């Protein structure tokens, strides 16, 4: 167990190094933070001076090592642009996005599991085809459109829910829920559509299996058999997809964050990339890498929980 943890840690450190080097290298080739900071009012002289001040003229590796040194001290540094410390902001933004993403994932799972199973169970009936069709449309509808439509209906027309903005759950749990319902819906429904497709496939893959017949011989309805037996066996691909979704949506939520004015990490990443704010991008990417590794660890553990055959001897 101890070795497991050490190994994971080593992997993590290695991944962070690789990712940070990649980000450093990619961004340094794309544009000039000094120029971005000075904007359209810039003079060549001004840009040169600022580059000097920001230390951008030093060699690539010097800058990289300096950053690394800071990070090793647990310090993400301060933004090139805002000069504010990155760490605390990262924590805030990340928590916002995590709420958004986790809520949406829960919603999508709750919607997708039954729908996917129904679509599989009825795969030759019109109802199954209908579910497949609707979910496919769901995949095709961009989340921002869903968002705008939801706002137009529930916020503007009916006035039931606020049209956006974020409320810290610790301060006002009710308000938090009220504000998150629409974002969760618009992100979650699209994800649900995607997930439904995987559930359908995974469940169909299980439908011909003998153990389902055994389950039915016990007196389970086809539905129960699928629910208790099929689903568990379909869980491996579904879990995988969930893991992948969880990581990719973190950034992918940017559009929903935009439409619902949620100060999350996706939006911040886009801004920071736009501002050439290298240190901020660096911090965000490293956080994402950490999350990805954590998620894949959790998914691996879940694999072995749902499918004992994967516990290698």
């Amino acid at each position, binding site marked *: 167990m101890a070795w497991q943890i050490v190994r994971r840690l080593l992997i993590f450190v290695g991944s962070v190094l690789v990712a940070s080097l990649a980000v450093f290298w990619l961004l340094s080739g794309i544009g000039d933070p000094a120029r971005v900071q000075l904007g359209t009012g810039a003079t060549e002289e001004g840009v040169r001076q600022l580059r000097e001040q920001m230390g951008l003229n030093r060699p690539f590796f010097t800058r990289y090592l300096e950053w690394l040194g800071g990070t090793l001290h647990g310090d993400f540094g301060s933004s090139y642009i805002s000069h504010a410390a990155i760490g605390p902001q990262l924590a805030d933004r990340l928590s916002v996005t995590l709420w958004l993403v986790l809520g949406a994932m829960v919603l999508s799972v709750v919607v997708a599991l039954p729908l996917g199973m129904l679509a599989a169970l009825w795969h030759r009936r019109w109802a199954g085809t209908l579910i497949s069709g609707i979910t496919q449309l769901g995949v095709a509808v961009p989340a921002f459109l869903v968002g705008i439509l939801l706002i137009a209906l529930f916020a503007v027309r009916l006035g039931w829910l606020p049209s956006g903005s974020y409320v810290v759950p610790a301060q006002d749990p009710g308000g938090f829920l009220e504000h998150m319902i629409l974002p969760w819906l618009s992100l979650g429904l699209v994800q649900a559509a995607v997930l439904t497709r995987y559930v359908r496939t995974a469940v169909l893959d299980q439908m011909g299996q*003998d153990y389902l017949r055994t389950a*039915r*011989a016990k007196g*389970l309805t086809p539905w129960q058999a699928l629910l208790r037996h099929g689903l*568990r*066996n379909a869980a491996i691909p579904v879990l995988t997809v969930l893991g992948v979704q969880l990581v990719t949506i973190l950034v992918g939520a940017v559009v929903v964050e935009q439409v619902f004015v949620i100060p999350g990490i996706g939006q911040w990443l886009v801004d920071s990339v736009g501002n050439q704010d290298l240190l901020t991008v660096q911090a965000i990417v490293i956080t994402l890498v950490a999350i990805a590794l954590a998620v894949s660890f959790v998914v691996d553990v879940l694999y072995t929980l749902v499918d004992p*055959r994967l516990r290698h001897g």
Partner: protein
Amino acid sequence: MSRPVGPARNGAAEADGPVLQVSGLRIGTRRTELVHGVDLRMGRRERVGIIGASGSGKTLTCMAIAGLLPPELVVTGSVRLAGVDRDLVGAPERLMTGVRGRRIGMVFQEPMTALNPTMTIRRQVAEVLLRHRTVPRSAARRVVLDLLASTGLPEPDRIARSYPHQLSGGQRQRVVLAIALANEPQLLICDEPTTALDVTVQATVLDLILERSAAVDAAVLFISHDLAVVATVCDRILVMQDGHVVEQGATVDVLAHPEHPYTRQLLADADLSVPAGEAS
């Protein structure tokens, strides 16, 4: 059909009506018929064996009785079970779920795939108990261990905690049997329940089937290729070939005085100490 179902020798079973009455059962795909009209009548406590060629429709017949045929197969005819006032053929799923696992227990042919690879044995056995609420949840744990032990499994506690892939074929087969017997069904259908078992375990399992079915007054529909096993278990035998029941009657009659050439052939081939060709 050579031998009509005469007045049964074990009249006791007939006294309170048949447990199972199958008539004119036909099974087929959309273009070929696979089973051509099977008639079968089983009394209480009666044990009926089906023997026959591989692919002759034995499994399909059993599946049809339990309503578990794959959806691409079509079934006609009638299957009636005592205590159920509906024909099981074409019965609604709701009815069938109440019947399966409760009134009809099933042991399948292939033990390797019959169990859910992702669930512990304990849960899989307990499920059938809890599904029909025959045992309170609190007692389920103990009942499961008892059931496993009664099938002759060593270390029932370890087995209960295992997953199917950790068990040998025979161990799995006994688990399936435990599931089938859990709710003391009226009718136990065993599709080659002992093929994966060694002879000692087989003897135990056969004893178990005999003993438990007797204990709960269950009728047994038993498929096996091992004539000795069939003879051990069954009072009556059906011989199937190519989707037809070619002969049926009391075990002793059929096995000792076979009439249909196919039955004779079977008996001839059953003796392994003599090569088939020379024996006949």
